C-alpha cells in the first residue's frame, strides 16, 4: 500500500500519510465510482482485480526471483478447473468454497512443483520457452481429456459452476434491500476479490522483506554468487515458483466462480502474455507498479471499446478504424513504446531488494521500506 501511495504524484512524496488515506478511500469507493459509469465498469473492475492477483503472483516469480514464466496461465487454469470439478454439476460435487479454493491453490502449487523441479535449472529465455510449452500442454490436455474418459468435458467447457457462498449467503445474487433498491452482486464480488488481493499483498510484502525475499533477490541478481553464500538455490527457486502458482490457482478459482463457466479457450497463451505485460508494464518487482500495471492494462481495452467510435466521429466525422482494430493497434503500440521509453516499467522497483541497474539516475530513498 505504501508503494501505491507513493505513486500518487506530489502527494505521495510530500504527504505520504494523506496519500495512504487516498488509496484506502479509493479502494473502498471504487465500485461506487464504477457503478456511476455503468455496471459494465463494475464487471471490468472485478476482472481487473483478478488480473491484479495474477500479476502479483507472476511478479513473485518474475520480478522477485527473476524466473521468466510464460506459461503462468496454466496455474490459473488449474485453479479454475479445480473449482469446476469440485463445485459444479459436472461430477455432481458441490463442496463449499472454503474447501474448493484452498484445494485449487494446493493443486496449482503442486503443478508448480511438478513443473518446477525439472525445469528450474534452466536459465533465462530457455526457461521462458519451456514454461510457455507447459502452458500450452495444460491447455491442450484440458481441451482433450473428454475422451476416452470424460474428465474435463473437452472444448465444451464446464457450465453452471457454484458461486461463492459465505455462510449460506450466495454473493452472486443481487441483494434486494427494498423494492426499489437492490445491491448488485458485482459489488459483493468486488469486495470478496479485494479481500483476497489485500491478503495477497500483505503476504507478499512480508515475504519480500523476509530471509526468503532476500534470497530471491540474490538469486535474481546473481545465481552463482547466491549459491556461493550458501543459499539452497534449487529449493528457494522452487518455493518462488510454486508460491506464484498458488496465487494463480486462487485467482483461477475465483474466476471460475465469478464467471460460472470454464472452457479451455480462456487459458490461451495470449492470456499468459497479457499478465506478463501487466507485470513488465507496471514495473517488475514493485508491488505498487504491478498493481497499477494490471489495473491500467485490464481497463485499457474497455476504455477504447467505449470511446473510440465517438472520438473518431467527433474528430474525423466518420469512423476510420473499428474500435476492435484500434484496440489491438493501440495495445501493440503501447507495449512497444512503453518498452522503448521506460523499460523498467511505469513505476520502477525500489532499489533495496531489486536490481540496481534498473534505477540508474534515481537516488536511493534512505528510509525506503518495501
Amino acid at each position: 500500500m505504501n508503494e501505491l501511495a507513493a505513486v500518487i504524484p506530489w502527494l505521495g512524496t510530500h504527504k505520504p500519510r494523506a496519500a495512504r488515506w487516498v488509496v484506502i478511500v479509493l479502494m473502498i469507493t471504487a465500485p461506487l465510482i464504477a457503478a456511476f459509469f455503468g455496471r459494465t465498469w463494475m464487471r471490468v473492475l472485478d476482472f481487473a482485480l483478478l488480473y491484479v492477483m495474477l500479476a502479483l503472483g507472476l511478479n513473485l516469480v518474475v520480478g522477485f526471483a527473476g524466473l521468466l514464466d510464460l506459461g503462468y496461465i496454466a496455474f490459473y487454469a488449474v485453479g479454475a478447473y479445480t473449482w469446476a470439478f469440485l463445485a459444479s454439476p459436472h461430477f455432481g460435487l458441490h463442496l463449499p468454497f472454503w474447501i474448493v479454493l484452498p484445494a485449487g491453490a494446493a493443486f496449482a502449487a503442486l503443478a508448480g512443483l511438478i513443473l518446477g523441479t525439472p525445469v528450474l535449472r534452466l536459465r533465462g529465455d530457455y526457461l521462458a520457452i519451456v514454461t510457455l510449452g507447459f502452458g500450452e500442454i495444460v491447455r491442450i490436455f484440458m481441451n482433450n481429456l473428454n475422451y476416452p474418459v470424460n474428465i474435463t468435458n473437452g472444448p465444451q467447457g464446464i457450465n453452471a459452476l457454484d458461486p461463492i457462498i459465505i455462510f449460506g449467503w450466495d454473493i452472486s445474487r443481487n441483494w434486494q434491500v427494498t423494492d426499489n433498491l437492490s445491491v448488485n452482486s458485482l459489488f459483493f464480488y468486488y469486495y470478496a476479490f479485494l479481500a483476497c488481493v489485500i491478503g495477497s499483498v500483505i503476504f507478499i510484502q512480508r515475504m519480500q522483506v523476509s530471509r526468503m525475499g532476500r534470497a530471491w533477490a540474490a538469486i535474481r541478481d546473481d545465481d552463482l554468487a547466491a549459491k556461493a553464500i550458501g543459499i539452497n538455490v534449487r529449493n528457494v527457486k522452487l518455493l518462488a515458483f510454486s508460491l506464484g502458482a498458488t496465487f494463480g490457482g486462487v485467482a483461477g478459482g475465483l474466476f471460475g466462480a465469478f464467471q460460472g463457466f470454464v472452457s479451455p479457450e480462456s487459458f490461451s497463451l495470449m492470456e499468459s502474455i497479457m499478465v506478463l505485460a501487466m507485470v513488465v508494464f507496471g514495473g517488475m518487482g514493485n508491488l505498487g507498479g504491478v498493481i497499477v500495471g494490471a489495473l491500467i492494462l485490464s481497463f485499457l481495452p474497455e476504455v477504447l471499446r467505449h470511446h473510440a467510435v465517438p472520438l473518431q466521429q467527433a474528430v474525423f466525422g466518420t469512423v476510420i478504424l473499428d474500435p476492435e482494430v484500434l484496440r489491438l493497434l493501440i495495445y501493440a503500440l503501447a507495449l512497444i513504446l512503453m518498452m522503448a521509453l521506460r523499460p523498467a516499467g511505469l513505476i520502477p522497483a525500489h532499489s533495496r531488494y531489486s536490481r540496481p541497474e534498473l534505477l540508474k539516475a534515481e537516488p536511493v530513498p534512505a528510509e525506503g521500506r518495501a
Partner: protein
Amino acid sequence: METLLQQIVNGLVVGSVYSLVALGYTMVYGILGLINFAHGDVMMIGALVALQAILFAQKMWPSLGPLALVGIGLVVSIPTCMLLGYVVERTAYRRLRNAPRLAPLITAIGVSFLLQTLAMIIWGRGYHSFPQLISTVPMQPIEGVFVTPVQITTLLVSAGLMAALLLVVNKTPLGRAMRATAENHRVASLMGVDANKIIAITFIIGSALAAIAGVMVASNYGIAHYTMGFLPGLKAFTAAVLGGIGNIGGAMLGGIVLGLVESIGAGYIETWSFGFLNSSYQDIFAFIILGAVLIFRPTGLLGERVADRA
C-alpha cells in the same frame, strides 16, 4: 509400410517448413539473444505482399508463366520484408540493447501484435487463397507414397538457403563479424566491428529468409492469412532450440526432426498409448521434446554453446 513411409514424407515436408522459418529465428537469436516473436509475422507479411504482387502481375501480364510469377512475388516481397526488418530493428529493438532482458521480449510480442493488426487492416480478416503456381499434382516415387512438386521444392529451398547461410557465416568477412558480435558485441566493437551495422544486417537477412519462407509456406498450403505466422513461428523457434540455438545447420535439423516427430507421433500415438491418447495431442510433441532436450541436453542436437544470458 506405405503408411509409415507416407508419414515420413509428410514429416519431411512439415519439417522443411519449420526449418525455413527456423533459419531466420536462429540467426537473430544467435546474435542478439532475442526471441524475435515477430519473425513468424514477418513471414506472414512476406506471403501477403507476394500474394498481392502475384495477383497484380497476373492481371497486368496474363501470359506470364508460373515461375515468372513466383519470381515477381519474391522480388517484391523480399525487399519489403528486408525494409520491415530494418525498420523494426532500428526503431524498436536497438534502443533496448542494454535494457533488462524482458523488455526486448515484450517489445517483440508488441511488434508481432502490431504486424498482425496492420495486416488485418490492409488485407482484411478473411483467408486468402494463394495461387498454386508450383504444381501440386501428386507423384508416386514409391507405389502408394504421394508427394507433390511444391513439397519437394520447399525441401530443396530450405536446404539451399541453409547452405548459403552457412557459406556466408563461415566463409565471408561479414560472417566473421557476425560471429564476433554474437560472442560479445561490446568486445567486437572494440575490435573494429560496427556491431550496430552487423545486427541490422542480421535482421535484414533474417527478414529476407522470412519472406522466402512465407512464399513457400503459402504456396505449399495454398492459403494466406494474417494469423498464419504465429504458430509456425513458435514451432520454428522450438525447432531452432532443438537443433541448438544459433546453429544454422541445427535449425535445419531441428525443423526436420520436429516435423517427423509431429507427423509420426500423430499417426501412431493412438496405437502406442492403447487408445488413451490420440492425434489431438499433435501440438504437444513440440513442447515436450523441447523441454526434454533443454533439460537433458541444453545445447540442442548440434549446439556449440549454451545461450546463457540470464
